[in-house]
């Protein structure tokens, strides 16, 4: 069944590439509905990316090669990450090469490159964004790792698909530790993907922005790759959440076309629900001051550590 595994692998990456902008569009649409606005088309992120690809790139005079390379690195790492996360099937050839810790490392690589690129031109906005991004990252990254650790202690492996398979195939057991982890993970997801209440993806107000401040110098295809990369990151995080907390429906074991027939609609359903949930969170909460972000993230980290503690104490 090596061929089937390879097919799943490619299918998963392609699906992530295709679905990520739609997912972002869906979140935006839900948000608009909840806020009594006329919703933009679900295809809007696509049109945006297409438009950006056709434009001429303008880059600052003193930008170094690092600045031009960063979008490709960010996009590439996000695509590889999509290949590791079991969104549809758990038998993925690429997974042997990178477990969940490597996945966190991949996200860190992307973050470091975005931040370095933001510092490259040497504007006030760029460095400000980089500093804030790293501030968010240094607390979010260990929190994510702790969340993954709880799941890996439960299933005695750090390979994400194996964790997912273990949790999916179990007779419905209740894990109090995973409940804490789920809270922590949600907070990390919000912070890492520049969503309200940590960052506002729709603002360009210097006092509040983090992610957009770093992209300010980018244009055209570089910006398109960065935007697409950001959409992929959101998609990837959603899929990590599914793999850890709602793994049901994912094709486990030997793959057949039947497994995928269940897995694809299941993924679509989960994405639709998660997107709506994200829109609700973003609508009911207010953007907090940047100074408060560390507290928010520290609580995420503590929730994750609490989850770990609950696991080692209760063994569940």
């Amino acid at each position, binding site marked *: 069944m090596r061929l089937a595994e390879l097919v799943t692998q490619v299918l998963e990456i392609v699906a992530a590439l295709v679905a990520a902008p739609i997912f972002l569009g869906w979140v935006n649409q839900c948000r608009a509905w909840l806020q009594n606005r006329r919703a933009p088309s679900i295809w809007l992120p696509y049109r945006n990316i297409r438009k950006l690809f056709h434009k001429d790139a303008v880059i600052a005079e003193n930008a170094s090669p690092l600045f031009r390379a960063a979008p490709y690195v960010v996009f590439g790492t996000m695509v590889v990450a999509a290949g590791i996360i079991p969104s549809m099937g758990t038998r993925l050839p690429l997974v042997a090469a990178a477990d969940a810790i490597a996945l966190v490392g991949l996200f860190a690589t992307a973050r470091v490159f975005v931040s370095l690129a933001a510092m490259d031109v040497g504007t006030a906005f760029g460095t400000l964004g980089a500093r804030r991004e790293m501030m968010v990252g240094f607390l979010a990254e*260990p929190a994510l790792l702790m969340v993954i650790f709880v799941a890996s202690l439960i299933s005695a*492996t750090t390979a994400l698909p194996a964790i997912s398979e273990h949790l999916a195939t179990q007779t419905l057991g209740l894990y109090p530790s995973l409940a804490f982890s789920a809270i922590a993970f949600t907070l990390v997801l919000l912070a890492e993907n520049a969503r309200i209440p940590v960052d506002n993806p729709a603002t360009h107000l210097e006092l509040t922005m983090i992610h957009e401040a770093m992209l300010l110098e980018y244009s055209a295809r570089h910006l398109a790759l960065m935007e697409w990369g950001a959409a992929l990151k959101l998609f990837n995080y959603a899929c990590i959440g599914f793999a850890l907390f709602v793994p049901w429906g994912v094709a486990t074991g030997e793959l057949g076309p039947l497994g995928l027939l269940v897995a694809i609609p299941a993924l679509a359903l989960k994405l639709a629900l998660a997107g709506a949930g994200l829109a609700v969170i973003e609508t009911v909460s207010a953007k907090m001051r940047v100074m408060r972000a560390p507290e928010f993230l520290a609580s995420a980290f503590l929730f994750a550590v609490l989850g770990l503690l609950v696991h080692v104490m209760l063994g569940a």
Partner: protein
Amino acid sequence: MIIRQSHGRILRAQPAELGAEKERLTLPLGLPDLPFHLRLDPLSSAFLLLLGASCAGISMFAAGYFRRGEGAAPGLLCLQYHLFVASMGFVLLADDAYGFMVAWESMAISSYFLVTTQHRIAEIRSAGFIYLLIAHMGAIAILLCFGVLQGGSWQFTFDAMREARLQPGWAAIAFLLAMLGFGAKAGLVPLHVWLPEAHPAAPSPVSALMSGVMLKLAVYGVLRVSFDLLGEPPWWWGLLPLVVGLFTAFYGVVFAAVQTDMKRLLAYSSIENIGLAFTGLGLSIVFLGAGMRLPAALALIATLYHCLNHALMKSLLFLGTGSVLHATGQRNLGRLGGLIHRMPWVAWLTLVGALAIAGLPPLNGFVSEWLLLQSFLFADQIPHSFINMLIPMGAGLVALCAALAGYVMVKFFGVIFLGQPREASLAQAHDCGPLERIGLAWLALGCVLLGLFPVQVIAGLGAVSEQLVGLASPGRGAPWWLLAPVPAGRVSYGPLVFLMATTVVIALTVLLVRLFYHQRIRRGSAWDCGYGRLNARMQDTAEGFGQPIRNIFQSFFWIEREVPSPFDRAPRYWIIIGDRIWRGVYEPLATVVQRLADIVALLQQGRIAVYLLYSFVTLVVLLGLAL
């Protein structure tokens, strides 16, 4: 230069016998009835490999670097440099306490002279003094440790110490003394204070040697004493290095994030990394004592791997700062910037080191971090309740340190090499010479290779783990490109495949973008919000970039600052971020010592009559006692 190079080569050639018949030699040196015993076993081979691999790069760099003068006569500098390297080699080969101490002390003293190369500067003299002081406090502890270890046999060869069966209490004391003595050299908190002073004071290749290699010898010392000389240590000993290591790692990285001097920043980062190495060591002792050999071997290999990694990447970064220092004359991050355009070689090679130390895959820093975290995941199976709950929390701290290391490295690289030059004089900065390039490239290559071929490295380190914990490298039987140390689980990491996948995806993206779209590019000025007055001073300084960390971890620092009021006509802002341990422990201690010395000084009158009186009184008292 040829001598230096061959020096590195010889040292690197030795580990070829790794795992072969143990090599011994008795040198007819030293005191008449105390010859030096030498022995090459897997543990010392592994550290000799570390010494040789990093010295090859550092010496190459130094050959170019010292041609452009650093204050001292090059001849003298060369002598001290080689004495330093040679004594480090002897420390590793020594097989008796006497030879070990002689080598250890010559290492301390030669490095003291290297630190104070620019002895005309008062700060450097005082940095050297603190270094020498703490080095000797440590040496006394090590000496006492050997005194305990001989266990009444009065034989000071390591063989005799292995034979001596110590009472558990004495063994624990020996271990404590070893932790104290070697911890002072390693820079474990609270004995770390010399490190951020001495490392910046030394010339950069020397900083690289001290940080990259000398600190690892302290790890070697603890490994030698606890695993080899004392035999199998009880599990609870491991808690000390574990807890101290975790705290040191965290303390170091938090301080690194707020530094404004690039070499001080790296010195604090070294404290962090040595903390991580001790964490692994402690974990290994705990596992071994609990009878879990596989996790013990895993943690031990994580420690050794981390030492090896850190030797290469920290040397690389220190040498990079040396080049920057030569090119610009600046150590202050606030006066650098934009050097990637002026010094592309240094910048790109340093970037490799920075990404490696930030623990990003597929470079080497990630591998040791991965191994350490994997060994933490076994901690819930330790058969001691409560401990098995607390130790997994350490994984959280390790992860936090790793993420903060990323923060520190973005700051380090971004402020020095990216952005706009903060001073006009930086326009004259020049790239480093060919010898320096080779040195940097050698170390960078080491970082990449250690990252890409972990299976081979671990197979090599297996002999050490077999010697110390009785289990050869875990995870045999996996394919050569796949690191799978835990046979039971399905845990694996294949850096080569990982790199290939990422490269293929990136290459495909580049290709597709080129194929389907145009590749026009225009250069324009940076977006200035329409004001047109953008200048280099608007970028974050090093203080600015570290500000979130300073705010979050405020209670760690001793902060003095002056914040100007908005109505100030000539506003001034300054901030001093100090170490609470220095102010709270060392300064009061120094005051007490000073007072005591003052009291003793009362005896010293400076008149010969008084001294004669002292002699007379002493004689009378002695006579009185004798009668």
